[in-house]
């Protein structure tokens, strides 16, 4: 039987606010345990949550960026369950009246993936199981994260392959980063993804039984987990079995999905309206104001990079995947107007250097204005492409130095004096009599070796064009 895969994704994105969603505790990550808690986020009786306006602003911004309809009225609800990381015994979330509905993300193929809804909710605390206490009869609870604002973004089951799911996720993450509402860090958990996946006979319009996948903390793992799970489901069905509706965890070490022990009523959350929070009706003016702050979105920027700068799609993708890198590229191009040259230098030299030093483009020591000067020096013939690499490396080491200062300090100016180069050429011809003979006997490749020798003696400073010309001329005369 030919099967079709159906995938829907649920993303939880942590919002980049200063404070928590319902109280004024700091939402900063990585602080001393239980140092950012108050009676509200500890779930003490008799306290009142008050909604952080920034959370609504960021969520509306997200809704607009994802082409959603911002709802005229929204409410919060209580989602009831017991777990030690949830002090109140319920999570304040949105159920019937979410903030935004009916959006869309367009993939590069032009295929549209529907966004069912975007809603706001609070995060739970963190449970710690310290390895040193492996035999301990208890777990530890840190509630700094309890009440940190989250956005849940639910897609329609519109994806038909793990690759489409991965692309959707990357575009979504890039969008959230571009509009500066979430840092999108999957490893640190500020961008988390659960997947619903099922398979059905190709051509069928009925959905198969879905399995929920959790615990995938990178794009690659999402793709791998989906691929594994689809194969598992195909195997079960082809052997005459049936799929259980269940939650399965991705095991990154074994590269398999494992059924999670779960009580049958675990999904019985008994939602009801949160009586401590009033309804919210975002004003049209406010929504309009927020829409004015939307920047150029990643996929639009990517297309523009290809058409305006005439660089390959792959290169454009690399740039837009990191907003700051795309910004850096554009800034350099604005200064020197040579997009392809800049692009190649960034992709071939700069990225490797950044990686080597383990720093981000934001901390890049080479300022665009110095980058531009280096390219100018190449254009003017002051330095060769080879020397430029040395200059580039020096600029990377000492951020304060300009390209011309480095060229001067290190004496890297290109030699264009024909007498000076001629003397080196003569000495090479004299030293490499054997190579010269084989060249004369028709082995044209030998010329490259001779050019290389001249460059070596000149420490890379001789103008390669002049070296070539002089060598040919002098060899002819022998």
């Amino acid at each position: 039987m030919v099967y079709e895969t159906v995938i829907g994704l649920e993303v939880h994105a942590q919002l980049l606010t200063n404070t928590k969603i319902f109280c004024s505790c700091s939402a900063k990550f990585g602080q001393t345990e239980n140092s950012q808690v108050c009676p509200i986020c500890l779930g003490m009786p008799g306290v009142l949550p008050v909604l952080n306006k920034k959370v609504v602003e960021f969520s509306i911004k997200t809704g607009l960026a994802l082409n959603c309809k911002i709802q005229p009225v929204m409410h919060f609800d209580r989602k009831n369950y017991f777990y030690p990381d949830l002090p109140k015994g319920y999570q304040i979330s949105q159920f019937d009246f979410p903030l935004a509905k009916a959006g869309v993300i367009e993939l590069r193929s032009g295929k549209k993936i529907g966004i069912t809804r975007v809603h706001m909710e609070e995060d739970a605390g963190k449970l710690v199981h310290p390895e040193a206490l492996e035999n301990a009869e208890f777990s530890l609870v840190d509630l700094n994260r309890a009440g940190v604002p989250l956005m849940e973004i639910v897609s329609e089951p519109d994806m038909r392959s793990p690759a489409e799911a991965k692309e959707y996720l990357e575009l979504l993450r890039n969008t959230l980063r571009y509009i500066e509402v979430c840092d999108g860090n999957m490893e640190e958990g500020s961008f988390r993804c659960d997947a619903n996946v099922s398979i059905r006979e190709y051509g069928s319009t009925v959905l198969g039984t879905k399995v929920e996948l959790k615990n995938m903390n990178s794009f690659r793992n999402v793709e791998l987990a989906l691929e594994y799970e689809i194969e598992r489901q195909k195997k079960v069905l082809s052997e005459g079995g049936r799929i259980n509706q269940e939650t399965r965890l991705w095991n990154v070490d074994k590269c398999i999905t494992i059924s999670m022990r779960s009580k049958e009523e675990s999904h019985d959350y008994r939602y009801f309206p949160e009586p401590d929070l009033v309804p919210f009706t975002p004003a049209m003016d406010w929504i309009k104001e927020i829409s004015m702050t939307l920047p150029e979105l990643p996929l639009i920027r990517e297309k523009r990079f290809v058409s305006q700068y005439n660089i390959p799609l792959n290169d454009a993708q690399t740039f837009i995947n990191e907003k700051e890198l795309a910004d850096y590229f554009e800034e350099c191009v604005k200064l020197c107007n040579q997009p392809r040259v800049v692009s190649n230098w960034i992709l071939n030299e700069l990225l490797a250097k950044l990686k080597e030093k383990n720093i981000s483009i934001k901390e890049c020591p080479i300022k665009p204005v110095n980058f531009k000067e280096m390219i100018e020096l190449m254009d003017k013939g002051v330095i060769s492409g080879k020397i430029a690499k040395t200059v580039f490396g020096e600029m990377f080491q000492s951020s304060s130095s300009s390209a011309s200062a480095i060229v001067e300090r290190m004496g890297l100016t290109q030699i264009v004096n024909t007498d000076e180069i001629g003397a080196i050429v003569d000495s090479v011809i004299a030293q490499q009599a054997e190579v010269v003979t084989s060249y004369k006997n028709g082995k044209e490749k030998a010329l490259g070796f001779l050019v290389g020798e001249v460059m070596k003696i000149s420490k890379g400073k001789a103008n390669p064009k002049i070296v070539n010309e002089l060598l040919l001329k002098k060899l002819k005369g022998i």
Partner: protein
Amino acid sequence: MSVDKEVIKKIARLANLYYKEDELDTSARELNQILTYVEKLSKLDTGGINPTFQVSPIENIYRDDIVGKSLDLEHVMSNAPEKEGKFFTVPKIID
């Protein structure tokens, strides 16, 4: 709609409540009385009436995103039955 002992048991479990056998009978009877009353209300025509989530007419109460003071650890832990350093402790949770 009516509820039996099994339904009461399930709701109790979800709410972390523990019932004795005879309490289950009492609860089922009382809840059924309440449900019968609610059923009467359900017969009223409420078409065109907006759901009442809140009884007060206020809406759009926000706070600004400004960090305030959190509690000192001493106060945070003062009501905790079990603690370990800066953490609350709970019976071991296995994921």
